[in-house]
């Protein structure tokens, strides 16, 4: 995060020295885009916050830990698709899951869907890509994640 801020500040300064007008124009363009998407972003993070309240860590561990076989993959993929957790929460949680006996391949499905499929962020994605493309991308990514999990299980089995 700090490096992102530092790099941006540096680039803005360099750009400003080279061409003042262009820099102001660029920042203006960027910020207008930000404000255009802001209401949708806000409503999405509101919904995520409420959903997250009902889906606690304890619930996730109980669900993913108990199930076995195909059921575990499906529930990992479903939970991963619906939730949107920042990495600093998702990875410690995955670590706990592994310690409580969940297999690495199920974790891979969970992490992959968590990152690639975003059901709650669909309103944002639709603003950019339209509904149809958004749905196709999410569905493909969902099955992609299951494929990743299967290949992971296979690799761990061979090793």
């Amino acid at each position, binding site marked *: 995060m700090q490096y992102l801020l530092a790099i941006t500040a540096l680039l803005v300064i360099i750009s400003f020295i080279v061409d003042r007008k262009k820099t102001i124009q660029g920042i203006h363009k*960027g910020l207008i885009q*930000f404000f255009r998407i802001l209401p949708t972003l806000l409503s999405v993070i509101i919904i995520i916050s409420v959903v997250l309240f009902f889906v606690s860590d304890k619930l996730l561990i109980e669900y993913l830990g108990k199930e076995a076989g195909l059921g575990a993959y499906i529930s990992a993929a479903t939970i991963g698709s619906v939730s949107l957790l*920042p990495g600093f929460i998702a990875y410690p949680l995955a670590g706990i899951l592994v310690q409580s006996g969940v297999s690495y391949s199920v974790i891979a499905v969970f992490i992959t869907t968590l990152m690639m499929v975003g059901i709650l962020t669909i309103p944002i*994605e639709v603003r950019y890509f339209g509904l149809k493309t958004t749905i196709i991308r999410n569905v493909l990514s969902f099955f992609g994640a299951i494929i990743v999990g299967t290949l*992971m299980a296979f690799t761990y089995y061979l090793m």
Partner: protein
Amino acid sequence: MKTILKKYKFDFPIILVFVLFVGSSFYFNYNPGKQIFKDNFWMFFKEMLVILPVMFILIGLFDVWIPKERIQKHIGNASGLKGMLLVMLLAFIQAGPLYAAFPVAYLLWKKGCSPVNVFIYISAFTTAKIPMLTFEIGFLGVKFSMLRILITIPVFILIGIIMGRYFKRNKCKINEG
């Protein structure tokens, strides 16, 4: 004014209800409401307010400085494997949640990046950002991380190719958001 209300017809009611809910939760000391606001909402809100404006400033600068021809040449329709590697590299060094990838995708597309590469960019962005990887390795181990990435890369290239074909065939567009 009317078009603005129409564009955000779901968003404004949600925001309004949430403001009223949180306000009354604090007033009546309703704990779940306070928890939703303090533990969950605030965390995402901070991330959004710090990372996104910065990202959009970078996007704006990129927009005015980088000529279309250059993007087209390196990651456009005829860029092949090199183009794919370049967009992946671009994605790996970034930070932020999934929704931060969409405005960048729009800009890349506007500047002539091929649809296949746009979708590879989105998948790569969500799968293997270097700042996140350090976290993953810490909690799940190098072996898991490396395996996951090696297996995921071909899968998301495949998804990118399928999406790119679909995108071109249906003459889809990416909007400004």
